[in-house]
């Protein structure tokens, strides 16, 4: 057993994915008929009744009874959602009310006539898009469809019945349907029903449609319907077998490539490729090779290419545009490198002489294809499209003719003529031709093909008129000269052709180089921008200037999207545009002008995505009519939007990282705070509890000194605990904003005295020096709070300065301020910590690694002093090691000193 068969029997991931995707979406069942009147609606309603009896919650979204009694009878008893009324050009049209159904959220909705085109002004132009949205919302749908509306069969049906149906449904809808029920009726029975008047026919089209109901047509349509259903059943079978890893005869390795050009038949060639792909169960792609010739196509022709590529995408193929020097090499190179096995092209309709002259791409492809099968499809005129084409061409006009270029060409020839007249005296007449040739070459380089051909003509005439005898006539006497003139003309035409082609290629290359450079610069600009608004602005500007469109950028904001940048500047969108942008964001799909959804909007809205999902929406509009973006512009836009999306995501991620860092820092602080509080509470408690239990249980074994020691520990540690808890409470009061200082006129000396008294015990090991100025003014402050501040400062000095050193407290008036200092001879404050020492729970590590204090004392000092309208700062002594804490209070103008009061 080889590896391959082992691999083949594993469930295919795509098949499993497809199944999984179908589980969250609503289920779609299509009742497919070969022609109107076979009884699809009737069948659907019967199925609905069966479901209703099972207890399913279902509503009728839209069902056309066309007055048929049986159908009318069936619809009774079902809940019908009222239609949405749309005014259009004076007509009142009724459409299915999508929003009402989405709001009602039934389990199953019945939708008749899947191919119906909605009235302008509704959300989607086509009813099948409404159905897509219902399915996306998880609602099951029953729908009816006639086979002639299926996109890939469209031209086949048109050929059979000679009626082209304008309303089509993409094949992908049928491919994604979970169930297809074929409602079948033999042609004879159907014609019988038609005669009995049981088939509804609109009056205005009665004759055309009667032609439609011929036995031959109906048989052909019936076969199409049966075949399409069989194909679908086949595909389901394959999915099932792949998902369950059942080995089978898979058509392996077949890949189909279809060449797309500006030819009107290309749509039917694309449809053929799709049918071939279906039969072979093969993936397929449509390719357009962009050569220098493409640049010269009319806007209408370019639109047709774009339309063909879009058609391929709609039919489920991949569409690409690839630049290349010539079509044959481009197509074959792509086919070979991507292992395509089939190539589908249109049969050339150029006249034979043109093929002789320029060669035939078809022949070259067949000759060089090697082992790739080439399918050459006969051209089918499609009258409707042809009409559209002519209309488009008349509207767009041919390639621009710039009269200046022709004047320039004439100028070149005139110069050549003058030069020839001068040189005539030194050179043979035959050599003068070279001067004219040079002029033609110059024209080709400067102006391109047509002006240079014009120059050719002028040159031939001028050469003949002025230089070939008989002079000053357009007749030529010498037959030798006739030959010379003929060859001159041939050479001139070839040279101008070649030169013009080189010029066109150079122009293309230059354009590409410019685009590449622009993209590169854009990428660099994006990567160097760290501010979101700058980035958005740069993106809007870049897209606007490279694609010549107006741009708005929208980013998510509060459940919707909002404009964040625009070029040219724009702040708000009208309601229709905003709705389209919102829809585009919510569904991650294009919406608005030219898109399938809300085409009434002024702009086209496209999602910007990265691998992680959509990041924003770009809205485009332009003052030009017609499609907003040509295929190559669309590619350029995608490149720009992808880069921008990545950059936006990068900034978002950077912000996330920053937030995470802040959160981690906060978390670290919180946990260190908790550790610190728990340490500060537990340590004294441990001493107290230990001492107390020791005293209680072992008093007999303890001598008196030991008992005193333990009791002393209990007392001191209780006091310490009390101080800590008092600090914690003060801090809590400060943080809760509950500190409301009183404002009494107090004598500073008095408060200093009481604070020193309280701190006597903690300062027992230190020398305390007090320096109070004689003229100390009375100050307005809260004596209780201020005493606490002084005590905390003294306590702090006692903790950090070693025993035996001096702690100095000085107070005096300096200008309009009262300044009070507590100075110690400790290690001082590390310069990095000068501000942080006032932070909560911040502690400077003492020199001997002792952990001292609670980290609250100074924080409380600052809180209290601030509350009383003063300031407190910490610094180091300039004269020696040691810390200085300075408290400053402003003095009011009508200050009084204690002495004044005494006097």
């Amino acid at each position: 057993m080889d590896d391959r068969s082992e691999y083949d029997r594993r469930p295919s991931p795509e098949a499993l994915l497809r199944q999984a995707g179908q589980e969250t979406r609503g289920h779609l069942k299509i009742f497919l008929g070969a022609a109107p009147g076979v009884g699809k609606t009737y069948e659907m309603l019967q199925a609905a009744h069966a479901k209703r009896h099972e207890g399913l919650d279902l509503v009728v979204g839209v069902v056309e009874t066309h007055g048929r009694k049986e159908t009318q009878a069936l619809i009774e008893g079902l809940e019908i959602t009222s239609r949405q009324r749309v005014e259009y050009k004076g007509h009142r049209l009724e459409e299915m009310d999508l929003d009402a159904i989405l709001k009602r959220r039934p389990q199953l909705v019945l939708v008749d006539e899947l191919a119906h085109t909605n009235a302008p002004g509704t959300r989607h132009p086509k009813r099948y898009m409404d159905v897509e949205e219902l399915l996306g919302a998880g609602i099951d749908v029953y729908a009816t469809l006639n086979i002639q509306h299926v996109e890939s069969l469209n031209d086949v049906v048109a050929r059979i019945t000679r009626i082209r149906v304008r309303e089509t449904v993409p094949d992908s809808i049928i491919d994604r349907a979970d169930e297809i029920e074929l409602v079948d009726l033999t042609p004879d029975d159907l014609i019988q029903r038609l005669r009995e008047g049981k088939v509804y026919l609109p009056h205005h089209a009665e004759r055309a449609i009667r032609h439609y109901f011929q036995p031959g047509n109906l048989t052909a349509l019936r076969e199409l319907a049966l075949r399409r259903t069989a194909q679908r059943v086949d595909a389901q079978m394959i999915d099932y077998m792949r998902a369950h890893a059942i080995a089978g005869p898979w058509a392996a390795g077949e890949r189909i490539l279809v060449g797309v050009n500006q030819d009107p038949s290309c749509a039917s060639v694309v449809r053929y490729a799709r049918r071939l792909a279906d039969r072979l169960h093969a993936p397929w792609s449509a390719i357009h090779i962009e050569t220098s010739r493409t640049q010269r196509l009319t806007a209408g022709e370019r639109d047709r290419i774009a339309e063909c590529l879009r058609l391929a995408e709609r039919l489920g193929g991949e569409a690409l545009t690839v630049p290349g020097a010539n079509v044959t090499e481009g197509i074959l190179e792509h086919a070979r490198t991507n292992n395509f096995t089939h190539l589908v092209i249109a049969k050339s309709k150029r006249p034979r002489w043109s093929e002789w002259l320029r060669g035939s791409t078809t022949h070259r492809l067949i000759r060089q294809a090697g082992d790739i099968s080439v399918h050459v499809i006969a051209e089918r005129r499609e009258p409707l499209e042809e009409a559209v084409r002519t209309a488009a061409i008349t509207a767009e006009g041919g390639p621009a003719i710039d009269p200046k270029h022709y004047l320039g060409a004439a100028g070149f020839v005139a110069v050549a003529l003058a030069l020839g007249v001068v040189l005539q005296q030194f050179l043979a007449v035959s050599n003068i031709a070279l001067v004219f040739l040079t002029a033609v070459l110059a024209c080709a380089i400067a102006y391109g093909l047509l002006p240079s051909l014009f120059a050719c003509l002028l040159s031939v005439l001028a050469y003949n008129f002025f230089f070939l005898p008989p002079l000053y006539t357009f007749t030529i006497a010498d037959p030798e000269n006739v030959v010379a003139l003929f060859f001159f003309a041939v050479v001139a035409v070839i040279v101008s052709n070649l030169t013009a082609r080189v010029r066109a290629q150079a122009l293309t290359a230059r354009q590409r180089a410019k685009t590449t450079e622009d993209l590169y610069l854009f990428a660099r600009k994006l990567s160097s921008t760290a501010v979101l608004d700058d980035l958005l602005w740069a993106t809007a500007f870049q897209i606007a200037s490279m694609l010549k469109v107006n741009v708005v950028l929208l980013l998510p904001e509060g459940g919707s999207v909002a404009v964040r940048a625009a070029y040219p500047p724009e702040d708000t969108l009208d309601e229709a545009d905003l709705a389209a942008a919102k829809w585009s964001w919510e569904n991650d799909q294009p919406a608005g002008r030219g898109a399938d959804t809300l085409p009434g909007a002024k702009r086209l809205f496209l999602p910007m995505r990265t691998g992680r999902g959509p990041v924003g929406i770009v809205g485009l509009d332009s003052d030009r009519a017609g499609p907003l973006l040509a295929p190559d512009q669309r590619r350029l836009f995608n490149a720009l939007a992808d880069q921008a999306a990545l950059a936006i995501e990068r900034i978002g991620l950077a912000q996330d990282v920053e937030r995470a860092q802040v959160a981690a820092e906060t978390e670290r602080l919180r946990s260190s705070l908790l550790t610190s509080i728990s340490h500060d509470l537990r340590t004294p408690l441990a001493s107290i509890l230990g001492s107390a239990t020791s005293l209680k249980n072992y008093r007999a074994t303890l001598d008196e000194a030991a008992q005193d020691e333990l009791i002393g520990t209990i007392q001191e540690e209780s006091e310490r605990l009390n101080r800590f808890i008092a600090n914690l409470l003060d801090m809590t009061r400060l943080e809760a904003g509950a500190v409301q200082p009183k404002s009494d006129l107090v004598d500073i000396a008095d408060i200093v005295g009481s604070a020193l008294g309280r701190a006597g015990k903690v300062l027992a090991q230190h020398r305390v020096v007090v320096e109070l100025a004689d003229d100390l003014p009375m100050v307005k402050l809260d004596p209780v709070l201020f005493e606490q501040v002084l005590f905390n400062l003294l306590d702090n000095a006692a903790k950090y300065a070693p025993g035996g050193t001096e702690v100095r407290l000085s107070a005096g008036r300096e200008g309009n301020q009262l300044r009070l200092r507590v100075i110690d001879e400790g290690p001082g404050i590390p310069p990095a910590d000068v501000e942080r020492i006032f932070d909560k729970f911040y502690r400077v590590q003492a020199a001997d690694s002792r952990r001292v204090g609670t980290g609250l004392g100074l924080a409380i000092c600052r809180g209290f002093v601030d509350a009383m309208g003063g300031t407190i700062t910490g610094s180091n002594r300039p004269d020696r090691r040691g810390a200085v804490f300075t408290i400053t209070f402003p003095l009011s103008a009508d200050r009084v000193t204690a002495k004044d009061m005494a006097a």
Partner: protein
Amino acid sequence: MIGKAAPLAAPLKVLVVDDEPAIRRFLRTSLTAQGYHVTEAADGAGALNDLRRAPVDILVLDLGLPDINGLEIIERVRGQGSPVPIVVLSSRTDETGKVKALDLGADDYVTKPFGIDELLARIRAALRHRLQQEGEQPVFRCGDLAVDLVRGIVTVGGNEVKLTPREYSLLRLFVAHAGKVLTHRLILREVWGGEGEVQYLRVYIRALRHKIEPDPGQPRYILTEQGVGYRMRAPD
């Protein structure tokens, strides 16, 4: 035996390592009154110095030292091959610190704040274990439970209890370290050879309790130290 420890021999030497003077003070007073000879160290460096100068019989160690982490001190002491019993004082509520200390070779721990009885009991259990290693007692008795380590017979209130070999080796491990906390990891290593999960252990403990405990819901012999391990009650 509850009174003074080892009254005949020279007093047992205890080294108390804690950065809080108040705690050192009451420990010195209390332990001295219990007949221990107490020396003190305020930080890790001092403790290591003291240990190097003169061997001690037991080390009471605070984990939250300002200079060297308490865990590191345990590691260094054990790294030098010293078997000195270590009782850890932990002011932290974090279980990981305790488990780490025990895994590194500490014998037991008390969480601050603690009653002096608790600490003395831990110190005694740690010391007893060292002494027992020289001459193991043949029959372990604790309440109604008796384990004959020589004949491998377990009785509760005189009635023999049938244990599986695994249960017996588990009980034997507990008995050998009666009064001392055993971490999950140590039990798994000793009984299962390092394999198995804590849940596995819990199942066996449950089974064992059902066989030897009078009320498995409120165990008397095998006590749970939440987040750390189990502790067998000290013998009578």
